[in-house]
């Protein structure tokens, strides 16, 4: 619980720093934009429609924020924030699990275990299917060398259908 609270505090801190960077960039740009607008008005060249003003606003802001996002400071801060969010998630899950442990519900960690077993078993079946396909193919090749041609053609036809099915024990061919 303490750990989770620490992560929340650290995350709020980093978020505040990040927001400060974004806010100061935005404020600087707006100040600059207003100055430019005033200068344009003085020279009698002020934007006459909202679209022109809006496009300029977007273009100047876009450039300023892209520059900000390219800085090491932003990149590092963002990286730290993402890490802290992931830590919060991990620790929240743990906390939830300890709260739910007495109840008859499947916990995330238990499901994860099942997913892992399922993944490993599927992989084993897949590998075995491939091995079986190779064995079937090889046996046809060997028999081809020892049997009369008519029988081989018949078995080859059969193997063509058996081997791929074995190779992709969990796959389906839909043609």
């Amino acid at each position, binding site marked *: 619980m303490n750990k989770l609270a620490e992560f929340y505090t650290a995350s709020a801190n980093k978020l505040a720093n990040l927001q400060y960077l974004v806010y100061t960039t935005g404020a600087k740009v707006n100040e600059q934009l207003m100055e430019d607008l005033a200068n344009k008005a003085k020279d009698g060249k002020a934007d006459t429609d909202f679209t022109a003003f809006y*496009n300029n606003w*977007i273009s100047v802001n876009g450039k300023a924020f892209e520059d900000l*996002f390219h800085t090491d400071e932003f990149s590092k801060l963002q990286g730290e924030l993402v890490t802290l969010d992931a830590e919060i998630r*991990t620790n929240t899950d743990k906390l939830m699990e300890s709260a739910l442990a007495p109840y008859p519900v499947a916990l995330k960690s238990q499901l*994860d275990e099942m997913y892992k077993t399922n993944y490993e078993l599927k992989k084993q079946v897949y590998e075995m299917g491939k091995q079986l396909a190779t064995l079937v193919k090889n046996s046809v090749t060997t028999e081809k060398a020892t049997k009369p041609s008519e029988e081989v053609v018949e078995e080859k036809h059969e193997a063509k259908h058996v081997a791929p099915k074995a190779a*992709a024990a969990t796959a*389906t*061919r839909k043609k």
Partner: protein
Amino acid sequence: MAQETMNLAEEMAEVSEKLIKGYENLKNTGEILVAQTPKVEVWKRDKVTLYHYTRTTKPVLKTPVLISYALVNRQDMLDLQPDRSVVKNLLDLGLDLYIMDWGYPGPAEKYNTMDDYINGYLNDAVDFIREEQSVEKVNLMGICQGGTFSAIYAAIYPEKIKNLITLVTPIDFSTNDGLLFKWAKDMDMDTLVDGYGTVPGEFLNSGFALLKPMAQASKFQNLLNIMGDEDKLMNYLRMEKWINDSPNQAGECYRQFMKDLYQENKLAKGELVVGAHKVNLKNITMPLLNIYATEDNLVPPASSIPFNDLVGTKDKELYKFPGGHIGVFVGSRTQKELGPAIEKWFAARDK
């Protein structure tokens, strides 16, 4: 002052009119359909599917083409709408096309690795096509991350690939030209993947949105201007549907992709290991066409261009396409220029 008041009133009236027309159009909008070019599911394992596009005529080229798109977005980008469809264009030009659909990984797919995707699904799909079409080799066309996977695949199994095309594909990750390349180096991928299991598509999308921070604002402004035009509105909605359709990422695959490639640049250095295979790009001895976009901010040219210096083939071409990462697929120039160029390049190597 009077003139300015007049302008303001006119603008407000114009905006109201646009909003009314747009509202009417939105009201009549049915389901937003994408990827409508007919195709047939021919192979499937777990959540990964291989589709074969339906042809009404015999293909012009004897070697079929397998398209491998990125895992981070949907391959529907190649077939957003009939008049902006790379797929339809290539079909019309006579190619026999297959496409990988990597599916939507859920919590159960969190353990899927790059090995599973490349040596498993992609390899099986290639073998399926080889057997189905009775050909020794297929043409492989990889896009973005799907291009990186294709390059890795072609380096491991050069005997199965006749020609390789990569489009907007990151290979050299040492660059910091693109924001994603810079940010990825400052992230703790282990903590991230351990925390999420399957990395949410929304997480990736929020990063993509920051690449052009004001794009959302100009997009909505543009929406106001086009929503009165039904066709333009539908174009916009199809694109929005695609943008927001971001599958989650299988954790283990994401972990290796980000750590080994984005952070340590192992592919370009010749140090990448995928499953039981060390990946040596010099093994790419088949012809290579490497297409990059000049204004690409997701996969900067600096990440794609060096690929041609890392491969073993002498038949290699670098194709510079003016535009951005997405413009390559939906721009009008794509239909007129890029599609025919791809067909011509394949045709010259279809002996």
